[in-house]
C-alpha cells in the first residue's frame, strides 16, 4: 500500500463518537495538537441523542477510578453538553443527578438525564391536561404514530388528534428545511391541539432556527418523541464533532487503524489506512475510544469479547464459570490499569489509554450511558495530556 506523508501530533484519538469527540476537544483546548480518526458509524450516531448517567457509576469505581475525579469529570461533561454545545445549535436540558422519563417514538417510556430541548421532557402525567396532536410521517420507521399515541394516553381518556404528512410531500433529505417547516406548520394549523408531536425532521444546522419558525408560524408548541437510528443521534454526533473541530481537532473519518508500534512500553507510531494509502502518525500519546459492541469497537465470538484490532488485552469484570454469557460479555472490554492505561500484548503502555464503551462493563448492555462513557473520556484525556507533556 502506497504511503502518504507522515503526520506528527501530540494526541491521537481513535474513534469519533461521544467519547472520542469530548476527549479530543478537551486535549485540544489545553493546547495539544490533536488528530481524531474513525471508521464506520458510532453508537452515538445510532443513539437517541439523549445522554444518560446511570448508576453504572459503580462500574467506574470498580475500575479503580478516583471518586472525586469521576465527579469532577462528570460535572464537566454536563457543562459541556448543556453549555458549550449551544454554539452548534443543539440545546440540551436536564441534569446529571436526576433522570427524566421520556416517551419513545415506538411506544413505551425511557429514562435519560440530558435530552435535546426539542424532545418532550415534561411530566408524563401532565400530558393528560394538554390538548395533544400527533403528526405522523407515512413511511418512516422511527416514529409509529399509533403506538406512540397509545403510550401517551395509557390509562386515561385523553383524545389525540392525528394528521399524516406523506413521503411524497416531504422527504426531508430532498426538501430544504424551510420547505419542511412549511409543511409541518401548515398541517399543525389545521389541528386544535396546542402541543404537537412530530418525528425528528430537522438536521443540526437547521434545528434552532427551523424549530423557532415552526412554532411561531403555527402558534403551537412542538415536541419530538425519543427515537433512535435517526436524526437526533446524528445531530448529537455532529454537534460534538463541530465543537472538537472548533477547538482545533483535525478529524478524519474513514481512516482505520492498521498497526501500532510500541517500543519500551511506549506507543511510538500508529499506522492508519486512508483509502488505498497508508499513513504513519507519530504521536506523543493516544486514546482509544473505539466503542463497544454496537459501535464496532469490540466484537463477540462465542463467550468471548474480542478486540478487532488484535492489539489490546481483554478483561471481564464478571469472571468465573457461573456467569451467564450475556453477563460475561457485557462486563467485557479492553483491559486497563490505573488511570485507564492500556495493555498491549500483556505489556503496559504508558502513553496509551482507553476510554468509553470499550472499557469493561461500560457498554450499553451493562446499563451504562453515554454520560458515563464521556466521563471516562475526560479522565483519559487528562492522563494523555500528562503523558504527552
Amino acid at each position: 500500500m502506497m504511503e502518504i506523508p507522515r503526520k506528527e501530533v501530540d494526541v491521537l484519538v481513535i474513534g469519533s463518537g461521544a467519547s472520542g469527540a469530548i476527549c479530543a476537544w478537551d486535549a485540544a483546548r489545553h493546547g495539544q495538537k490533536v488528530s481524531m480518526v474513525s471508521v464506520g458509524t458510532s453508537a452515538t450516531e445510532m443513539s437517541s441523542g439523549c445522554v444518560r448517567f446511570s448508576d453504572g457509576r459503580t462500574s467506574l469505581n470498580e475500575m479503580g477510578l478516583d471518586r472525586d475525579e469521576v465527579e469532577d469529570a462528570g460535572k464537566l461533561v454536563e457543562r459541556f453538553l448543556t453549555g458549550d454545545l449551544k454554539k452548534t445549535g443543539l440545546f440540551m436540558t436536564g441534569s446529571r443527578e436526576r433522570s427524566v422519563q421520556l416517551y419513545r417514538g415506538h411506544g413505551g417510556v425511557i429514562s435519560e438525564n440530558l435530552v435535546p430541548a426539542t424532545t418532550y421532557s415534561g411530566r408524563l402525567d401532565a400530558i393528560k391536561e394538554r390538548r395533544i396532536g400527533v403528526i405522523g410521517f407515512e413511511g418512516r420507521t422511527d416514529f409509529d404514530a399509533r403506538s406512540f399515541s397509545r403510550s401517551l394516553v395509557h390509562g386515561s381518556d385523553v383524545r389525540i388528534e392525528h394528521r399524516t404528512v406523506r413521503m411524497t410531500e416531504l422527504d426531508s433529505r430532498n426538501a430544504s428545511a424551510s420547505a419542511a417547516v412549511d409543511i409541518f406548520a401548515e398541517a399543525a394549523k389545521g389541528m386544535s391541539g396546542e402541543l404537537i408531536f412530530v418525528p425528528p425532521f430537522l438536521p443540526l444546522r437547521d434545528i434552532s432556527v427551523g424549530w423557532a419558525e415552526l412554532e411561531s408560524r403555527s402558534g403551537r408548541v412542538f415536541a419530538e418523541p425519543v427515537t433512535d437510528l435517526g436524526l437526533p443521534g446524528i445531530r448529537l454526533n455532529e454537534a460534538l464533532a463541530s465543537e472538537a473541530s472548533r477547538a482545533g481537532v483535525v478529524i478524519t473519518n474513514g481512516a482505520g487503524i492498521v498497526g501500532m508500534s510500541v517500543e519500551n512500553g511506549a506507543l511510538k507510531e500508529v499506522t492508519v489506512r486512508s483509502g488505498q494509502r497508508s499513513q504513519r502518525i507519530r504521536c506523543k500519546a493516544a486514546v482509544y475510544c473505539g466503542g463497544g459492541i454496537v459501535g464496532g469497537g469490540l466484537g463477540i465470538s462465542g463467550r468471548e469479547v474480542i478486540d478487532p484490532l488484535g492489539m489490546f488485552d481483554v478483561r471481564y469484570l464478571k469472571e468465573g464459570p457461573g456467569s451467564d454469557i450475556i453477563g460475561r460479555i457485557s462486563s467485557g472490554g479492553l483491559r486497563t490499569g490505573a488511570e485507564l492505561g492500556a495493555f498491549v500484548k500483556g505489556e503496559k503502555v504508558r502513553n496509551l489509554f482507553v476510554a468509553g464503551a470499550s472499557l469493561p462493563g461500560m457498554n450499553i448492555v451493562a446499563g451504562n450511558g453515554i454520560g458515563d462513557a464521556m466521563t471516562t473520556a475526560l479522565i483519559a484525556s487528562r492522563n494523555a495530556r500528562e503523558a504527552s507533556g
Partner: protein
Amino acid sequence: MSEADKCIKCGSCMRACPVVSMFGEGVFPGPRSLVVDAPRSGAPLSMNELLRCSMCMRCRDVCPSRIDLPEAFLALREANRGSVMRPGHKRLVENIDSFGASVHPDDRVLSIPFSRSADVCLFPGCISRWRKPEVLSDAAYILRSSGTEVACPEGLVCCGSPLEKIGDHERREKLALTNVPILERFERIVTTCPGCAGQIGRRYGLDAMHMVEYLYEVVGVEKLTARLEGNGMKVAVHMPCHLSREIGPHTKDYVHSILGSIHGLTVVDYPEEGDCCGAGGSLLSGFPDMASALAKKKISAAERTGASLIVTSCPFCIVNLNNAGGTETVDMITLLRSLSSR
C-alpha cells in the same frame, strides 16, 4: 464466516445511500437488501437492480461492521451477469472491442507537449482523453511548469474500471494485460481520473497517484499556488466519490489545502460537498436518467451556496454535472491553469 454474516441490521448503509434516498427502495433496494437480505433468503437477484448502485462507497464508510459492500456489489454483478445488457453498457462493450476505449473516440488530436522519455507517465483515461482533453493538456502543462517531465505512451487502452463495474472481468483482464507492460516501465503513474487510479491500484499490482495527490505531495501547495489570484471568485467543491473514498479521505484535505491557498478565492463550506453526482458504478451509461436526477440535486445544493463555479477532480463527475445544466463544473486543474494565465 461470510462478510454478509457480520451485518447487525443497523440500517446505516441504507440511510447513507444516495440512490435509495433519491429514488426509494422500490427503484433501488439498497445495500442491505441486495447484499445481505437477498443472499440470506436465497432470493434471486435482478441485474438491473444491482446495476443501480452508483458505487459511491458511502455504505462501506458508514458500516459499523466494516463490511465491504461495494466489493460485494461487484461480485454479485459478476455472478449475475447475463446476456441481456443495458443499451448504454452494450455501447460501452462495443467501444472497448472496437477502440479499446469506453467511449467512441473523436478525431481531436491530443496536442500535449509530452517528452519522449520521462519517469512519470500521465495515464490519460478514456473520458479525459476523448471528452475532456483540455484537462490532460492543462495537467501536462502544470506538471511541466513544476519541473516534471511526463510521457503519455502509445498503446494505452481503457483502464478497465467500467468493465469491472458491469461484471465483465474477461474484458477487464484483457485491457489490464495490454496496459501493464507499458506502465511498468515508468517510475510513477499519475492520472486525472480517480476511477483509473483506483483500478490501477487495486487490479494492476502497480500504483497510480491521482493528480491531486501528486500536486500536493510532490509539487507542493506553495509552489503551485504562490502566484495565483482568485479575484474574489466563490467556488464550491464537489468531492468525487472515487477520490475521497477509494483513493482516500486525505484527498479532501489536499483539495481544500490547494484551493484554500489561492489568494482571493473563496471556497464555500456546504454539507453536500461529498454527495454523489450520480455518474459512478456505470450508472451514467446504464441509467442516464437516474444519473441526471442525482446530478441536478447536487447542482441545486451547490447553487444554494451562491458559488459561481463548481470545482472537482474527476472527468465523469464533470461530464455528468455539466450535462445537468446550471452552474458550470470544471476540473481543479483547469481552474489552476486559468488562474495562472490571468
